C-alpha cells in the first residue's frame, strides 16, 4: 500500500477520529517526537463536557504544548491543537482558526470533513491527514479531497480499529497513501 514517493514537507497534520479513537490518540500523542516541524490538529467527535479540559489531559502525556483552539488562534508548528467540541473548525489563509457554529454535517460538529477540506484548500500538498476509528462516515470524503489535492493520506487499518466503519468508508471511495496500525502510524509521523 505504501507509495515510494518522497512526501513533500508537511505543514499540518490533521487527525480525525470518532468512537474508538481516543485510545489510539493516547498511544499516538505521547509517542510523537518533541521537535515536530508542523502543527498537529486533532478533530475528535466528543461530548461537550466543560468540566474536563482535553488539552490538560493530553498535556500530561507529552512535553509538546497542547491547546484547545479558540477563535482566531494561530496554528503554529510544533504544537498540538484540539478542535473544541460543538464547533466546526476551518482555517484561514493566515493560518488562524475560524470557528463556525453552523448545522451539523454527517451528524457531527465538529465535522472532520469540514476541517479536512478547509486545511487542504489552505495547505494543499503540505497537508497530511489520518482517519481513525469511528462509527459513521465523517472524514471519508474530506480525506479523498486531500488526496486529490496531493496531500498525504493515512487510514487506520480497519482490522485494528475498534470500530472500523470510518476507515472502511474511506477505503471504499479511494486508495489512501497508507493503511497502517497505530504503531506504524507513529513511526510514519515521526519520519515526516
Amino acid at each position, binding site marked *: 500500500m505504501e507509495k515510494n514517493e518522497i512526501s513533500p514537507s508537511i505543514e499540518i497534520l490533521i487527525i480525525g477520529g470518532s468512537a474508538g479513537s481516543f485510545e489510539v490518540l493516547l498511544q499516538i500523542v505521547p509517542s510523537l517526537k518533541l521537535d515536530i516541524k508542523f502543527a498537529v490538529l486533532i478533530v475528535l467527535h466528543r461530548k461537550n463536557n466543560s468540566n474536563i479540559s482535553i488539552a490538560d489531559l493530553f498535556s500530561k502525556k507529552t512535553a509538546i504544548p497542547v491547546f484547545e483552539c479558540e477563535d482566531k488562534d494561530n496554528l503554529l508548528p510544533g504544537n498540538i491543537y484540539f478542535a473544541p467540541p460543538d464547533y466546526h473548525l*476551518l482555517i484561514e489563509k493566515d493560518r488562524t482558526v475560524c470557528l463556525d457554529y453552523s448545522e451539523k454535517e454527517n451528524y457531527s460538529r465538529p465535522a472532520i*470533513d469540514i476541517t479536512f477540506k478547509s486545511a487542504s484548500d489552505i495547505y494543499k500538498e503540505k497537508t497530511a491527514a489520518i482517519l481513525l476509528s469511528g462509527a459513521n462516515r465523517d472524514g471519508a470524503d*474530506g480525506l*479523498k479531497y486531500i488526496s486529490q489535492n496531493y496531500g498525504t493520506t493515512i487510514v487506520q487499518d480497519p482490522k485494528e480499529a475498534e470500530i472500523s466503519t470510518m476507515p472502511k468508508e474511506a477505503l471504499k471511495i479511494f486508495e489512501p497513501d497508507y493503511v497502517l496500525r497505530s504503531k506504524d502510524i507513529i513511526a510514519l509521523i515521526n519520519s515526516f
Partner: protein
Amino acid sequence: MITADVVGDEDLELLLTEVASVYGYDFTEYSKASIKRRINRICLIDKHKSFAELRYKVLNDQSYLSRFIEEVTVNVTEMFRDPTFYKTLKEKIIPQLGVNPFIKIWLAGCSTGEEVYSISILLHEANLAHKAIIYATDINPTVLEKAKTGIYPINYMKFYTENYQNSGGTEDFSNYYSANYDHVSFREYLRKNIIFSTHNLVSDRSFNEFQLIICRNVLIYFDKVLQDKVFNLFDGSLETLGYLALGSKETIRFSNLNQTYKQIEKEKIWKKTR
C-alpha cells in the same frame, strides 16, 4: 463527495463588495473561510453551477437577497446553551444587575430568540423582570419575526430542559410554555420586556447604554478588524462596571479591551472596570 468550490477567493471578494454597494449589507469583513463555505453551500443547495449564475441571481433578484442573507449568516442556536455559562449568569451576574433601578440588557445577534427567552426566564426567576428591558437585535429581519413568536419544535424541549436544569434551574421547565401538537409557545409574559429590532453590528451605531451585553457566537464569523470595531461599539455601549458576555470559544484577548476588562472566573464574561 466533496467537489471543488464554485466560488473562489476572488469571486468571493467581488460578490461581497457588490452586495455591499448594491444592498448595503457589508460582509466584506466576515471571516473568509467561513463565509466562503456558506456561499459555496448556497450554490450546492440552490444548484448554481457557476459563480456567474449565483452573482446574477443575487444582484438582479431582490427577493433572493433575504434567502442569501439567511444562508450566509448562521442562525443555529439553542436555549441555555453551555449550562455553566448560564449558571454563572444566574448566580454571579444577574444578582449584581439587581442593584440598579433599571436593568438594560442587549442581546446582539439573537437569531431566532432561544437565548433571549433563556435570559428572560432567569430575570423572572430572580424577580427582576419588572424593572428589566432586553434589547434583542439581529441583522436578519426574518429570524427576528421567528424570535417574536417564541414558537419552537416540541422535540427540542427535552434537550432544553436538561440544559435548563444543568444551569441550576429548579422550576418545572414546561411551565414556561404551552404545547401544541409538534410545537410549543413560550408564555406571553416572558416576552413583555423584550424589544426586538434589526441592528447591523457592521454598520449601525450604539443605541443605548447597558449593564450587560450578550453576544455569543457572532464574533467568530468576523475577521479581526471587524471584531475590533464591534468590541469598540460594545465598549461604548456598556456602563462602567457592566458586563460583556461572549461565546465559549470567543475572547477579548486579541483586542484593546483586554486592558480594562476583567474576566469573571473561567467563563467568557468580562467586567468593564473603567
